[in-house]
């Protein structure tokens, strides 16, 4: 579980115009251009699948309103509910 990435990023290949600003801006360098062309004739950016910290920089440098969705690992719940505790016990 320690290797679980802190964040995750999802790039819509239909909205991405392939400008590459997110790739350039990404601090952990976990975004690259795809090999394939999108239906709009560009190489959209995509997430390598690991290394994302959920910092959100790619979202802010991207000019498209809806191309990028950034996820972040939820903080662990402070109080473990009884159902979760019992489920954890059975695992």
């Amino acid at each position: 579980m320690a290797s679980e990435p802190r964040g995750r990023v999802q790039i819509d290949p239909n909205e991405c115009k392939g400008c590459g600003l997110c790739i350039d801006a990404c601090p952990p360098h976990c975004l690259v251009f795809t090999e394939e062309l999108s239906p709009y004739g560009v190489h959209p950016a995509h997430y390598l699948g690991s290394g994302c910290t959920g910092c959100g920089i790619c979202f802010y440098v991207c000019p498209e309103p809806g191309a990028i969705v950034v996820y972040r690992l939820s903080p662990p719940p402070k109080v473990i509910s009884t159902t979760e505790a019992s489920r954890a016990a059975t695992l």
Partner: protein
Amino acid sequence: MAEYEVVHSKSPVFYPIYERKADLKHQTHYCPGCGHGVVHKLIAETIADLDLQDRTIFVSPVGCSVFAYYYFDVGNVQAAHGRASAVATALKRACPESIVIAYQGDGDLAAIGTAEIVHAANRGENITVFFINNAIYGMTGGQMAPTTLVGQTTTTTPWGRRPVNEGYPLRVCELLATLEAPVYIERVALSDNKNIMRARRAIRKAIELQRDGAGFSLVEILSPCPTIWKMTPTEARDWVAENMIRNFPLGVFRDRRLAMPGNGGPPQRSVAEVLGLTSPSLGTEAPAAATPTDTREWKMKIAGFGGQGVLLLGQILAEMGMREGKEVSWLPSYGPEMRSGSAHCHVCLSSQRIGSPLIEHPNVLVAMNEISLRKFAPSVTPGGLILYNRRTVPADLGVSNVRLLPIPAAELADQLGAAKVGNIVMLGALLELTGALSFATAEAVLQATVKNPDLLALDLRALQAGRDWARQLPREVR
């Protein structure tokens, strides 16, 4: 199992799809790497975070961002070139509770709109202006802008901008920071991650200041234009960092709260007081009861030469309507000539709110001369009324389905002593024939507006003369 939650996604302040074109409704029309999209997102995020979506009015400029109203799901107005800050002024003054954002480029704000931005800032209007500076005209294909850098090549400075010929780049923040009234002026840049996050804070602060009623704020955003600069998006971003920031230093140029001196100011009076509608001497303390059953909507066009009292007749009708508790509008249209030029006005009288003061198809036309009769008679609605300022109507006029009545108003007025009261003769005939408003109101308005007692007496006789003339018309033509 790890749970991920969304921390950044498309703002609800953007429309889900953009209806501008038949296809590509999910993308903006901006080029790859354009700064507009980034600024749009920062503004949308702030509006959503501050819960201002239902109060915001966004004023789009002319330029690439002319279509911003296809993206922002807020109130939208698109202003004439350069006039966004003037339009924003009007919106803010008319709707003080709204958050008014003017979004302008450098060609818009710093060239054709220089006067508007300087005066809006100088008046300290409580609006927020986002000034997108990319040092070039983007939409029109790369002409020199006021903010083009010295030496920068554009289509109109093919050998680079030379100060000896084109002057120096205009520094808007520095210019506006010489004024007293602005409360917040900052220049930021979309040059790198850190500066984009600074821009985010500046945009948020500017909108918060307006929300708090602080006054005028402007954020200049140095923004890349990869297509017109003929660079890749990353090269363009670096060019902002290396060249634009050197010429347009970043920073806060003004950040202070300003309490405008009140100086007492003029006494605040209600509109009714200003118009003299509450003066007991006029006998019109309360608006004369509008007949509740009279729901007729009058769309009157009064046309003639300047000097015939065409506009005044419209004003009198509008004021009469107000006194009778109707919704009214009066819209004048006239040429530069004060006398003998063509003039007309539109008067709406209604029991309902009036959507537009412009009348395309009047149901009453007062034509004070033949030119106006020929020009406007065909536009009168079927069943409408035309009053023509002659004893006879031209035989070849060829209008049907309307009541066309010749009223020799100028001639009757001349017999009374002054042809200039022909408009009041016409008013008397109009009231008698339409019953739109009462004679008592007409007399009250004349008494309130005509100061000269001789002229007032003449006007009252003219009103009666018009009324008498209309009454003696045979029943079948009335």
